[in-house]
């Protein structure tokens, strides 16, 4: 449940960043520093021709889908969805580490929405890991 809520928050943050990147939002709520704009308009905000925020939207939607699927009849006591969550969020954490490194060392600007997303994906990963440990301690009958 916690993962689904976190993934929803991550989806909303990513959609917000994507709308800014696509020009639907003229400006981004980010204080007066302009750092969010600087990050979101940097060359690293696009990967293989697709805005990085779009990967975020897809990733969080996938996580939310798996989390909700795992709550369905017959899946609640099975460990597979939790393993999927660990795998998916693990990729997300690695990607976020890369993006956070770019903010810190290359772009020299901090986008608070990107940092929020990085925190959310780390929380999802930690929660999913805790779920896996829970399954190991109390295996399904």
């Amino acid at each position, binding site marked *: 449940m916690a993962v689904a809520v976190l993934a929803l928050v991550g989806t909303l943050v990513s959609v917000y960043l994507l709308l800014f990147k696509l020009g639907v939002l003229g400006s981004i709520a980010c204080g007066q520093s302009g750092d969010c*704009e600087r990050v979101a308009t940097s060359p690293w905000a696009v990967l293989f021709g697709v805005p990085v925020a779009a990967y975020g939207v897809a990733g969080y939607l996938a996580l939310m889908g798996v989390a909700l699927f795992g709550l369905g*009849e017959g899946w609640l006591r099975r460990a597979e969805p939790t393993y999927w969550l660990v795998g998916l969020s693990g990729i997300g954490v690695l990607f976020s580490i890369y993006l956070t490194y770019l903010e810190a060392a290359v772009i020299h600007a901090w986008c608070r929405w990107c940092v929020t997303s990085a925190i959310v994906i780390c929380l999802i990963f930690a929660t999913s890991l805790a779920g896996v440990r829970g399954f190991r301690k109390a295996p399904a009958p």
Partner: protein
Amino acid sequence: MAARGPLRNFYFALGVIAVLGVFLIVRQVNDPGRSVSETYRNAPVTPVRPGALGHTLGSDSAPVEIVEFADFECPACAHFAILQFPYVRERLVSAGRLKWRFMHFPLQGHTNSPSAHLAAACAGEQGRFFEMKGAIFNRQNVWASQRRPERQFRGYAQGLGLDLSRYDSCVETRRAQPQVDADYAEGERLGVNSTPTFFVNGRMWPTGLDYDRIRAIVDSLAPVGGPPGAAPAPGRR
């Protein structure tokens, strides 16, 4: 599929969060409050000094003047120039409602910025500054990482049909450099420390601007059909 009790509550809470989030995003897309903010109203009037500073676009009799301090290598400036400025130019400047003044503000640390500003100022010498500005910003990702971007800029000048011998002599002798330096000095005097920084009728605008907000400002300061100059226009020249 009918969800069980606790799950039903959970789905409901998830739905509420989703609706709230979408509402907040939609509200920002259609933010009706994008007019003159309190911060702006309280900002001191520090008009740009009269004279030949910057490069202007639009009618001198336009009721609103926006001064933009920008750096050619700044990504946020390019973002504004590419995504917002064409609408501003087409719908507000061309309509006589807004005068635009671009001021050079090459930031330290942006190694290719000085030559970009010189190139644009040299195009300005031939009355094509804003076209050159567009070309330079549009291809920022191409020249920003190059060792010698001057050849790129010359290519843009050629593409715009500038008199190349005049352009070359301007760049070689750095004839237009004093204009860039004067703009920068004016920015420092006004307390500009980041780009893009905007001044609306002489007052520093506290945040970034986009087309919607600029339109709201123009509507607020000089409504269509209202008496000309009826709106507060501090620092108007």
